[in-house]
């Protein structure tokens, strides 16, 4: 190509780029995107470019969290939480199994519903992601420097931990509640005597110290179903709002029996008042049994500790700490707007969206505008707290998020749409269909003081015909909409894993710079760490053989092990000696009835192998690490029990590898 023609091509490309930018900018600043092409451009992330946002989608009954890039909708990573991951050994290795311990034993599954990013001054700070386990009540912390679950706390006296984790503005607390009221303490009673024995429970968990989650107090509440929560801010700072349904206290056929009352309640909890009350010595320690599991930062070995006591408080012991706000028809979401003045309730069966004013609520409390009491908890008058109602919003309002520009976006499950309305006038200004039956919706930062805005993500309960069919079981569906203009515009439809309930998204800039690229081998405090090939070795202690092994491109040391006998348990403690980003090594051996290991640089992980046959068995690196990855292998010889073959591993440092440690 001549210089002239090349420069012409370059000029041409330049002109196209300029036009493209102009087009994209026009699209971003108004709602005039021209159909599919405009939408495609809006979500296109060119090869080598990165997404604008990290999105953390709960994995529902998969028990994990999906990390996606937005606006592209690309899956970046799946983080196992209440689940096992054969891909990297999470929940299989000795170092990670304690994370899944509960008072019921080892439980490698849960139903993960909601995500909550840690906050500073009411805005997402990108330190941690909290999630809840609904079935065997638990909460977890994911450290966003290395995208790994580092702490799990079981919640005693809970059943169906649904209104969780929902964080307070400075991450002082995350919360937990019981969606299914149960006898407290749990005991052998007739189910029909629900009203007599069954109690609700709301827990506040201190969360601002990693590895030190603790239940500050449990409020023992009337036996309703506590469903969702949000912390107040601004005028409502220090309060937390919990929806409840089944104020009928039905114990069977709830779809009918819990839909009788015209209004159920939002429980407004003044947690500062409870704190003061507890400090004054109110409440009592109850004997319970639960687990606190955490991953030590330096050994990267997790521990499970048993806890046996929790502080329980009755709302009546702390006057002024809990109030009920009557709210129409089995409310689901209780969402607080960016100013903290309004609490929007999504009454699943309501024909309006009621909006409570926290300012009016505080005044009503001062004026004692009560319509009565429920088990000693004052019930405020509906009109006394109501700011307004959104009329004819659609059918089945569930959840509301905010764009920070004065608009609220509510998901409508039954009419399958997102409805945009004005917070001041309560008027609906736009609607967009979802495919199909949206549950939660998410605006980046939509629950914070300063929403990032720009997009709303619909997470749907029904997928049907959206993608290529895959038999009876389908992936889940999500849709991304542009909300920068007056009208919402559908940009992208992408499949998601598990059933995402809630999600959070955050400006990538808040996360990208704090990434751990590898673990410093000098700081590795795993008791079985092997810091250089010279320290490797094979030792026997009774019927247990410990192999201290290293992995570095492209060999294991030792790679020939003899003297293992039938009946032995072999523990391979493999340390990855690499100190470079994206050089994990894998480790697997024939017949191991567990997953592989995937060992990050500088990390030590343990594979437990009980050889079941006599012979010689290969082991190898499973993660393509280098040009000579296929050569990264070795053998273990298994002899009969009582054999005279000496236990040894060839720990000699290969001459050509003398520079590698």
């Amino acid at each position, binding site marked *: 190509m001549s210089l002239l023609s090349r420069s012409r091509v370059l000029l041409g490309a330049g002109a196209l780029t300029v036009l493209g930018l102009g087009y994209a900018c026009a699209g971003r600043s108004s709602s005039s995107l021209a159909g599919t092409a405009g939408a495609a451009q809006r979500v296109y992330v060119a090869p080598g470019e990165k997404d604008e946002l990290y999105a953390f989608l709960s994995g529902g009954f998969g028990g994990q969290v999906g990390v996606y890039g937005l606006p592209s909708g690309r899956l970046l990573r799946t983080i196992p939480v209440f689940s096992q991951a054969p891909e990297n050994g999470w929940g299989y290795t000795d170092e990670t199994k304690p994370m899944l311990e509960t008072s019921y034993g080892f439980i490698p599954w849960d139903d993960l519903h909601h995500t909550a990013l840690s906050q500073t001054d009411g805005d997402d700070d990108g330190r941690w992601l909290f999630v809840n386990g609904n079935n065997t009540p638990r909460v977890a912390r994911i450290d966003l420097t290395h995208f790994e679950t580092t702490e799990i706390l079981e919640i005693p006296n809970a059943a169906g931990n649904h209104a969780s984790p929902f964080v307070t503005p400075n991450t002082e607390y995350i919360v937990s509640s019981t969606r299914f009221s149960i006898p407290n303490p749990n005991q052998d009673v007739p189910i029909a005597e629900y009203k007599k024995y069954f109690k609700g429970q709301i827990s506040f968990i201190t969360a601002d110290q990693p590895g030190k989650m603790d239940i500050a107090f449990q409020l023992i509440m009337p036996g309703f179903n506590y469903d969702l929560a949000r912390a107040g801010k601004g005028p409502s700072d220090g309060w937390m709002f919990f929806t409840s349904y089944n104020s009928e206290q039905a114990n069977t056929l709830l779809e009918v029996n819990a839909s009788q009352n015209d209004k159920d309640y939002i429980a407004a909890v003044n947690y500062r008042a409870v704190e003061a009350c507890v400090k004054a010595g109110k409440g009592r320690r109850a004997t319970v049994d639960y687990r606190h599991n955490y991953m030590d930062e330096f050994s990267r070995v997790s521990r499970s500790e048993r806890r046996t006591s929790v502080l329980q408080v009755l709302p009546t012991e702390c006057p002024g700490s809990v109030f009920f706000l009557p709210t129409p028809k089995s409310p689901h979401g209780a969402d607080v707007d960016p100013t903290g003045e309004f609490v929007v309730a999504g009454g699943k069966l309501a024909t309006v969206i009621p909006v409570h004013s926290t300012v009016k609520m505080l005044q009503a409390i001062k004026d004692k505008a009560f319509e009565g009491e429920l088990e000693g908890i004052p019930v405020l008058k509906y009109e006394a707290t109501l700011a307004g109602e959104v009329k004819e919003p659609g059918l089945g309002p569930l959840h509301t998020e905010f764009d920070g520009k004065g608009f609220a976006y509510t998901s409508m499950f039954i009419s399958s749409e997102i409805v945009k309305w004005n917070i001041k006038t309560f008027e609906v200004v736009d609607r967009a269909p979802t495919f199909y039956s949206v549950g939660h919706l998410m605006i980046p930062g939509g629950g914070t003081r300063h929403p990032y805005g720009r997009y709303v993500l619909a997470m749907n309960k029904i997928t049907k015909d959206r993608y290529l069919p895959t038999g009876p079981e389908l992936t889940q569906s999500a849709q991304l909409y542009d909300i920068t203009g007056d009208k919402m515009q559908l940009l992208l439809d992408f499949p998601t894993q598990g059933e995402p309930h809630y999600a959070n998204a955050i400006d990538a800039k808040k996360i990208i710079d704090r990434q751990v690229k*590898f673990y410093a081998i000098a700081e590795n405090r795993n008791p079985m760490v092997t810091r250089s090939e010279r320290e490797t070795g094979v030792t026997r202690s009774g019927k247990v053989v410990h192999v201290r092994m290293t992995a*570095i*491109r492209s060999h294991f040391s030792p790679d020939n092990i003899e003297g293992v006998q039938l009946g032995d348990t072999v523990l391979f403690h493999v340390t990855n000696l*690499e*100190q*470079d*980003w994206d050089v994990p090594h894998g480790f697997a051996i024939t017949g191991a009835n567990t997953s592989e290991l995937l060992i990050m640089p500088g990390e030590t992980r343990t594979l437990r192998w009980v050889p079941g046959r006599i012979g010689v068995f290969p082991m190898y690196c499973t993660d393509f690490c280098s*040009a*000579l990855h296929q050569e990264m292998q070795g053998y273990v010889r298994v002899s009969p029990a009582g054999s005279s073959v000496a236990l040894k591993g060839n720990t000699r440092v*290969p*001459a*050509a*590898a*003398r*520079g*590698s440690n």
Partner: protein
Amino acid sequence: MTVRSRWLVLVAVALMATAYVLPLWRVDLVAPQYPEGLGMLIRINGVGGVKPNDLNSINGLNHYIGMKTIEPDAIPELRWMPWILGGLIAAGLAVAAMRRRVPLYLYTVVLLGVLGTGLWDYRRWGYDYGHDLDNEHAIIKIPGMTYSPPVIGRKKLLNFTATSWPSYGGIALSLAAGLIVMASVTTFRTGREEA
């Protein structure tokens, strides 16, 4: 020696002193698998990575081609160089104090000689690492291929592109040498001793 020359010598000496803290030379290695690059900084008394583990990573990769481990402790020059630089600085101060032209001319020649020898020595070490390969145990053997990085410039070494360039300390030393030459030329042109 003119007043101006004396100031030039003093500025040059100050520049030389910065080489105690600033790296002299920088070698960058970029490959498809290392878009962020690996790098080495050569200092007056040591060799280190640009990022904390770069030297380890470079040594790890070098085992494929049978190159010796780059061990700063095995390079005696790194122990001598701080003293040689100290000598040059002291001599520079002495020249400025003497205010005589002959010592200045001599100093110019010695300085250029020492710096030239340093460069030659750096090239010699690079040549040694790049050519003295353990061919018996090397994993990748390409007949005729050697792996010496360039002293200045860019060179393709298998999948890596190596770029070598003086770093701040090296630039400071070059500037110092330039100033000393300038001082000599100024003094020579005016043809007289300072009053």
